[in-house]
């Protein structure tokens, strides 16, 4: 069993892991990038549609193009890359972080490092998570799995498809399936508004004349061997109105019902997970409850644009560099909490007087909303946000000058929407 020492290890080589590793390498530190897949780029490699990179590269790219640009830099930076390598265990003891990983060629590797970046991304919620009743035939896929089968492997998972959930991957797949000759019969969304971003509703459903049923659920899946039909039921006043149910014959059901940050490894190292995001609780330096363990990208909270992932992760890499240089001081941090109409805010702490980027998600839908940043009962800053909706993450920067120090310990900051 070999043992390897690094100053930092990044787990996961998707957009988040690559961006963080790059920044750490630029800081002059020895960093290893570990991923269980056989390629850099993570899930981007199966996202062959465009719309990536508008903010980060100022250019419209496909997923693989976006990944390739980052990957080229990662390779050029001389970062040690471990592909096909699964991290199986993670522990922290006396400040040393130990990862047990494994691959076919080198066997088991023990990595020791001063800092670790969690960048494992997320997984898709599945049928069991949302409890769709009915039988369990073949032909039920998560949207991401279907995407992989079509875009990477070249197979058609189904011919007549009903998509449950209007998340972005589901919408993208509605279009993709139409292109490969499948008939998408319905997209069924439990909420009264779409879960995906507007661009995808227009380009993937409207343009293909695919009906979207809002405030509807799939109340039953039928089929013995393969899916044969689903029953769709409208919600009235929040409860299913079974008398108005209708049935659609289909051979495939796709699920696009949300993503869950993949934090099983984080939990092994004792990292505290927030109930609001499903990701680790992080301070102003994106450091988790375990000292020297950082988190960025979808493992921290689910993003809708990879550009924001890259931005957040680059900053995370910068904090790791500060940490390795012993430049993360003892400065006091104040709590950040989600106020009215806000589901969550990341990070969960801030440092007064310093520029801070906040990511948050709304609970409400509003054409023109106002962000209220409150402290000690007073609104210290207001910001207008267009097209507020739960599907679109709000990402903004607060200037340090707008966050002056308070007397004594930093006062808690509350971010609300109205």
């Amino acid at each position, binding site marked *: *069993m070999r043992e390897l020492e690094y100053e930092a290890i990044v787990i996961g080589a998707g957009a988040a892991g690559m961006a963080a590793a790059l920044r750490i390498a630029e800081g002059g530190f020895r960093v290893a990038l570990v991923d269980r897949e056989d390629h850099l780029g993570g899930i981007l490699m199966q996202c062959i549609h465009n719309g990536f990179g508008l903010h980060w590269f100022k250019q419209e790219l496909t997923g693989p193009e976006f990944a390739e640009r980052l990957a080229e830099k990662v390779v050029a930076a001389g970062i040690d890359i471990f592909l096909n390598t699964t991290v199986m265990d993670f522990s922290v003891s006396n400040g040393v972080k130990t990862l047990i990983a494994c691959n076919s060629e*080198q066997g088991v590797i023990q990595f020791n490092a001063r800092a670790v970046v969690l960048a494992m991304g997320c997984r898709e919620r599945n049928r069991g998570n949302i409890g769709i*009743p009915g039988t369990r035939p073949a032909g039920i896929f998560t949207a991401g799995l279907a995407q992989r089968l079509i875009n990477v*492997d070249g197979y058609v998972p189904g011919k007549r498809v009903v998509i449950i959930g209007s998340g972005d991957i589901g919408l993208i797949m509605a*279009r993709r399936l139409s*292109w490969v000759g499948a008939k998408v019969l319905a997209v069924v969304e439990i909420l009264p508004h779409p879960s995906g971003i507007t661009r995808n509703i227009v380009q993937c459903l*409207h343009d293909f004349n695919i009906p979207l049923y809002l405030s509807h659920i799939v109340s039953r899946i039928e089929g013995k061997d393969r899916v044969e039909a689903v029953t769709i039921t409208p919600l009235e006043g929040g409860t299913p109105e079974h008398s108005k149910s209708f049935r659609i014959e289909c051979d495939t059901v796709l699920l696009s019902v949300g993503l869950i940050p993949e934090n099983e490894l984080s939990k092994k190292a004792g990292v505290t997970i927030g109930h609001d995001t499903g990701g680790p609780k992080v301070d102003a330096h994106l450091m988790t409850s375990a000292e020297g363990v950082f988190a960025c990208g979808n493992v921290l909270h689910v993003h809708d644009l990879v550009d924001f992932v890259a931005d957040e992760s680059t900053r995370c890499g910068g904090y790791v560099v500060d940490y390795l240089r012993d430049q993360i001081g003892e400065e006091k941090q104040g709590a950040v909490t989600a106020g009215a109409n806000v589901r969550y805010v990341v990070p969960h702490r801030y440092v007064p007087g310093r520029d801070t980027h906040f990511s948050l998600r709304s609970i409400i839908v509003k054409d023109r909303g106002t962000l209220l940043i409150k402290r000690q009962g007073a609104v210290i800053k207001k910001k207008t946000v267009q097209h507020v909706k739960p599907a679109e993450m709000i990402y903004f920067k607060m200037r340090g000058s707008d966050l002056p120090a308070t007397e004594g310990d930093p006062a808690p900051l509350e971010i609300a929407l109205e």
Partner: protein
Amino acid sequence: MKKDVFDVAIIGAGAVGASILRRLSAYDLKLALLEKCTDVCFGVSKANSGIIHAGFHHPVTSLKARLEIRGNLMFDQLQHELGFPFKRVGIIVAAFSYEEMKTVEQLYEQGVANGVPLIEVCGRERLLMLEPKLNPDTVGGLYAPTGGIIEPYRYVFALVESAKQNGAEVKTDFEVVSAKHNDNVYTITSSRKEKIQARHVINSAGLFADEVSAIFGGEVFTITPRKGEEYLLERNAAGFPNHVIFPVPSRVSKGILVIPTVEGTMMVGPTAIEVNDKDDSETSSDNLDKVFAQAMYMIPVISKREIITSFAGSRATMPGNDFYIGISKSAPHFIQVAGIQSPGLTASPAIGEYVKDLLKQDGLRLTEKTDYEPFIPHETCVRELSPAALDEKVKEDPLYGHMVCRCESVSEAEIVEAIRKGHTTLDGIKFYTRAGMGRCQGGFCSYRVMKIIARETGRPIEEITKRGGGSRLLLGKIPVESGARPSPKPKKKSVKYA
């Protein structure tokens, strides 16, 4: 021709059929196990709760109680020989009223009469000490430390593997549709027109035992499916108990249980609802609510948020509420092993023993094999290895270093091994290796498993199924042109917001 005649053909490869097969494989006999599904343990046994009952639920006069107690005691030796996951975690019956405590007393008396070892009636304090997550409103209950948990499919796979190693033949996709008895030999025909011959036939066809009996001219009876829905919760679930927790039973069922599975996930269920369709494996939202209401009454910290999947299967019930095991009076050399519902899994090794004796009574000559091998090779499970041991394994076979299923840590080597053992469907691989059984439910690994099946079996990937028959997973290949040059043809710009 005579050489090809099987001494015994067993119909149905569930826990019962597999136990009988494995027991008989210790003798010089030519044996066949016939199964209508694509793999063994694909019927109701795969939806079994996996409880090894202690033996206090049934009256001493019943055959059930006798075989249950005997079967329970056989599991340590079986696990030693076959290596399937099994733990005697103990069973607790929790009472929430003094009325229920009276039933607990009766269960205790019954258990003592049946010979259940170490059984005890507990007061509230003792029960809460044993099971701190229990609702503190409990007034006491029963504790039976010999109760246990098992992975039902791993048990059946191991039994079948052991029997095969000792010369038994297993024929899957063999649905018995007709049988003729001539010259003391049955000729049995499958739906695919395959024929085999056998001198003795055992009907352990579970839900379909009534239909199989009719095919052979055996007794007329009716199997009524009684469906049970179960919910599986993720590893490290908040409500994971120390013991299997039972409510005080009703007349028809043992109630909704909270089960700490051997592999670390947690299960709640099953319901007990009589249905008409033997293949009915639907789950419903009403029952989900009922199951959780009852489970959470016993252990309040159980959370629906931790559900990873649900499933259902039906118990094969018969009037009379006892097992129906005996030599047929109307069909020659035909043994009925029917109505084996709970505690069928617990009783299964004892049923194997019992049926062996019935065969002897029916004139079958039993000669012990001199080269009978009770042990099967222990399968390597990467998730059970220490880092150093895994490192050694990877040197032996690099495929142990390639994780296919991240949630349950299943390596490519384990998948390949399962395929070589004949499990060539996605579900077969899942039940054998646990790949796809974890929190993501195959979201990340199923395409990898499909590719490995295709590679190892040499079959096109489009032919790979979930569980045989018409359960194909992919419905086509993308023509090169359409994949290369997608051309959207937007129709009129309207959308239906229903």
